[in-house]
């Protein structure tokens, strides 16, 4: 393993060590779940009624559940499903939201206004509740839950991409591209859109953590992954039923979710800081720094220093 090289003169390495820790955490989790079949003592759905609710032991490092299934095997295989579905969900939300934001940012005022009214309307509903409604319409299951979360997160990306497009469009280099005769379509896709990449990556990383929690949460409520497929949320729901007798059942799935979210948050924060540094150093995208701004502060005539 090579450590992070010391800051080389001339080239800036801006990722904070905590970001490296976060990325490593995520990578370890993803690799461990990929290797699940080789790391598990048994299959995740293998029932053994003679070994029900056994505490952790040498053969079963995390104990067994009420059907004698291996908790270690189930935790690993659950991650194999949840983490990768979460990645796909976030990518889908970023793509759909990005397309909507691009459309709104490029479209004439009326369509933009309509789209943003819609996005704002969706944003007043907490994403989890919106996801619940969609799962209610589609019926429970892994993919309905994933689709629901992707739709619920789309408005956030749409707003973000639109705001970057509106600010970037006014920058001198875009004006230069227009003046040098590039067609509007090319200006938008080749010159303006790339400026949104950074913020979208940061938002996607942070959203990843939320999606892992929500996906397992829907499983916890019985609305996500359906048994017998292993799922962290479903494991926690079962652990709750056997809590007095087998408290160890709730440790592995909860710790796994926490580790995934921690990794995503650390990486997301470090990426955000790195991006803000680059922007501060005169880089391309002009970014809002992390300090929260009053709601509606961007609306002209809305707030006036007295």
């Amino acid at each position: 393993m090579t450590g992070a090289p010391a800051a080389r003169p001339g080239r800036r390495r801006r990722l904070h060590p905590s970001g490296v820790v976060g990325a490593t955490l995520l990578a370890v989790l993803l690799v461990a779940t990929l290797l699940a079949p080789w790391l598990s003592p048994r299959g995740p759905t293998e029932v053994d009624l003679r070994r029900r609710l056994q505490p952790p032991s040498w053969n079963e490092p995390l104990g067994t559940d009420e059907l004698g299934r291996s908790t270690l095997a189930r935790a690993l295989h659950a991650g194999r499903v949840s983490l990768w579905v979460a990645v796909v969900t976030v990518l889908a939300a970023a793509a759909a939201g990005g397309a909507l934001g691009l459309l709104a940012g490029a479209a004439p005022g009326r369509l933009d206004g309509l789209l943003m009214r819609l996005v704002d309307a969706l944003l007043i509903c907490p994403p989890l509740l919106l996801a619940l409604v969609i799962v209610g319409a589609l019926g429970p299951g892994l993919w309905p839950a994933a689709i629901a979360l992707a739709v619920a997160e789309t408005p956030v990306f749409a707003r973000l991409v639109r705001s970057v497009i509106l600010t970037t469009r006014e920058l001198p280099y875009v004006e230069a591209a227009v003046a040098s005769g590039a067609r509007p379509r090319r200006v938008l896709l080749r010159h303006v859109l790339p400026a949104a990449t950074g913020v979208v990556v940061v938002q996607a990383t942070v959203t990843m953590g939320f999606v892992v929690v929500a996906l397992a949460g829907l499983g916890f409520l019985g609305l996500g992954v359906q048994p017998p497929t292993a799922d962290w949320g479903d494991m926690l729901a079962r652990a709750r039923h056997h809590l007095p007798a087998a408290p160890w059942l709730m440790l592995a799935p909860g710790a796994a979710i926490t580790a995934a979210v921690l990794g995503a948050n650390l990486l997301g924060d470090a990426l955000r800081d790195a991006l803000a540094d680059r922007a501060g150093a005169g880089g391309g995208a002009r970014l809002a720094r992390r300090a929260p701004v009053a709601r509606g502060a961007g609306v002209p005539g809305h707030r006036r220093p007295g």
Partner: protein
Amino acid sequence: MVAYLLARLGGGAVSVALLLVVVHGLVAAAPGDPLVALLGPGILGLPEAQRERMRIEAGLDRPWPQQAAAYLGAVLRGDLGTSRRSGRPVADELRGRLPATVALAAAALTLALALGLIVGVAAAAFARSWLDPLLTGALLLGAAVPVYWTGLLLLYAFSLALGWLPASGGGGWRHLLLPALSLGLASAAPLARVTRAALLDALAAPHVVAARARGLSRPSVLLRHGLRNALAPVVTVAAIDLGRMLGGVVFVEAVFGWPGLGHLAVDAILARDLALVQGVVLVTAVAVLALGLLVDLTYLRLDPRVRYR
């Protein structure tokens, strides 16, 4: 000011109406017979002619825009429909569950604010000692723990292992304590992080240096000159957090069997009681908007430079 308030309320009403139309559309676009979704699979045993009559009565034979308009009109008249599960009006169901969730959210927010402010101020006050990295690390971890796992851990520790508090159900403050603590801990971590960052920013301002130079005591500088100016971002994050917290309510109520709106929403979805689901969305959206307005009005007090027109 009055014009500003009216404009905000009007904009909010339009947003809520749009949200309801979108949710109505999502439900209408769902696979399966909408009549079955509305009245339950039991009606499949009825003769075709009777089902057709029920379809017309429920307005399901009309095109979707008309249905959505009819739904919005009914909502404006205060009629949220009838719950399929219980046969009672949705408005009554919501009214029955609202107080429990309001109590839970209020208790959780109070805990989160108290804990978040204390830890955030402590981390900023000891920014150059060993305590700060320790607290910052704890906050990062705290922000990553899913709220339903916190709930399970607290449930095990305080009601099963120690036997101090009841494990499940609604009732007095003893039932409220663990759910509120689970929810409050989840929100305290981000609040403390913002408090720390905003306070460190505020403490770097020239007037704080001047206050120190005049010989004011450290606590006085920290709280009266620092925290006073750091509160605006904290309030913003508290408001955003409240929105997310309302989502987390669903999980906490499921863990502790707390009889609030979140529990109702999950039951409604499991029973495909869509009128009830839409009712929960309506109440939540109105609550989120009201909180947003409340936050903006709070700025007036926190920052005398802010004026609304």
